[in-house]
């Protein structure tokens, strides 16, 4: 059963069509990759899914519920969280505060103005679990601004994960991470709980083919091919427009 579906999603910026008739179906628990050459509209699709952009036409269904008109924060509460291609972190906060913030928000005490952060043990326990899962314990008291890039990248994912999403959208999670820190990041992504559905937007073909069990290819804002990794790899059209150049390189 599809947990996240789009029907005929379209986004125009003036005369430019950034996304055209995108109908995706992402199965529950899937490791689904969305790939495509530069400028194919991958990030536009993510922005549409998460509510940063409003579609010109089409609809989005999460867990059987139409979320097309909902605000970004309402979609998070319904179980969809994302990471960003370029880190969007709170540079003045520490990782501990950052995660504490997201956890408080999810457990419904985000608007609480009289209690202190973490005065509930449920919040503390959850923070600890996430800090450990994302290998942030040793830097959790540092300001985010001074963390090594690899740790910031981990925090980027940890922050989305702290919303305990059913569907997690990872927008190029490994982009720009130096080789030395890459392994820790990939291992952490591979170890995400199986019940969390992951939509991975990625350029890196090694990562896509080692991780995904289903791949959708986006070209010029439209869905081009959709299938299992082997099918996609074999598809001559995909090779021609996209993988061809990549694999030859």
């Amino acid at each position, binding site marked *: 059963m599809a947990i996240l579906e789009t029907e005929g999603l379209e986004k125009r910026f003036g005369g430019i069509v950034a996304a055209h008739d995108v109908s995706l179906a992402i199965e529950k628990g899937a490791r689904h990759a969305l790939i495509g050459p530069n400028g194919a509209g991958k990030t536009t699709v993510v922005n549409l899914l*998460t509510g*940063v952009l409003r579609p010109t036409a089409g609809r989005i269904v999460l867990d059987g519920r139409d979320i097309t008109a909902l*605000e*970004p*924060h309402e979609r*998070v*509460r319904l179980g969809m*969280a*994302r990471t*960003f291609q370029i880190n*969007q*972190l*709170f*540079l*003045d*906060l*520490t990782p*501990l*505060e*950052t995660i*504490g*913030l*997201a956890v*408080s*928000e*999810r457990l419904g*005490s*985000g*608007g*609480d*103005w*009289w*209690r*202190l*952060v*973490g*005065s509930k*043990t449920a919040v*503390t*326990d959850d*923070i*600890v679990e996430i*800090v*450990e899962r994302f290998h942030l*314990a040793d830097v*959790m*008291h*540092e*300001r985010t601004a001074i963390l090594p890039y690899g740790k910031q990248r981990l925090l980027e994912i940890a*922050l*989305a994960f*702290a*919303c305990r999403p059913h569907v997690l959208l990872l927008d190029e999670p490994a982009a720009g991470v130096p080789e030395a820190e890459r392994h820790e990041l990939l291992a952490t992504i591979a170890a995400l709980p199986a019940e969390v559905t992951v939509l991975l937007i990625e350029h890196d073909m090694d990562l896509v083919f080692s991780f995904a069990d289903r791949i959708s290819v986006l070209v010029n804002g439209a869905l081009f091919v959709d299938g299992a990794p082997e099918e996609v790899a074999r598809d001559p059209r995909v090779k021609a427009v996209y993988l061809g150049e990549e694999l030859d390189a």
Partner: protein
Amino acid sequence: MTPLTGDVAAYLRNRARWSPLEIAFWIFAFATIWLFPGKYLILKDTAILALFALSLDLILGYAGILSLGQAAFFGISGYFAGLVAKYGIINEPVIALLLGGLVAAALGFVTSFLVLRGSDLTRLMVTLGVSLMLYEVANRYSNITGGADGLQGVEVAPILGRFRFDLYGRNGYVYSLIVLFVCFVIARRIVYSPFGLSLRSIKGNALRAAAIGIPVKWRLVAIYTAAAGFAGIAGALLTQTTAFCSLDVFSLDRSADLLLVLIIGGTGYLYGGLIGAVIYKFLQDWIATLTPQYWQFWIGLVLVVIVLLGRDRIGAWNEAARNALYGAFGRLKPRPAAVGSER
């Protein structure tokens, strides 16, 4: 409990603990009641300015909302307190003060929806516009407000029915200081709460804040409303302690001075408004005795120097001084950095 759980829990518990430096600050603040008996008037004005600056710090330092119109809330509550006292509608100053705060908060709530649209410049203009409009409304209805002559004949009853506003201004100062302290404690609770943390995240990155489920708009409405309430309490205090209210409570100067105070004191750590108010008032007082006519020149010079030196450098000195002090007190590792310091 694993060591990490203990560590996280202890950190979160200690995050909002009063530091020795803060306790010393407040002991000194209250000691001034006995230390400087001849200075009650300027001390009282300083306390009111500090409370007013605290209200701007809540929205600027924590939520990143730039405003040139805090005087709107200061003024409306100032007139409210004056009118209810003049016509004997509410005779107890503390109740009038709280109601004045509520009136200002209500105005804050209504105008917040205008302010939250758009960028810094838009906000600056909208906040300025709102206070200009109120200024002229008060000017137009001079039969109620006294117009350019100010509201005459305000008689403020004793505080809690017991403490009369005396000629030396002692009770007025003690009253203002207590109100400042209570408001400060509430503001401090707010900024260390999950709500306060979410404000800092919105200031840091509103896009991401929304992406982790924070209703950005409503949080900003809430803090703008609360800050308006604090500004209102400051305005009511001024009217009550001077038994007078004039159009200048709405003036642009008043809002602009407030920004100056925060530039001097720094934003985003709550004490900026307090320290800034002390420096600003006493600098003004001292320079005015030297050159009664041209004191603004020196204030301007101080401003230029501060901005040119840059907040970061001053922040770094501040940090170094703080670390030294924390070392001296042998306390826990200090909290990471002056939060969200302005450039």
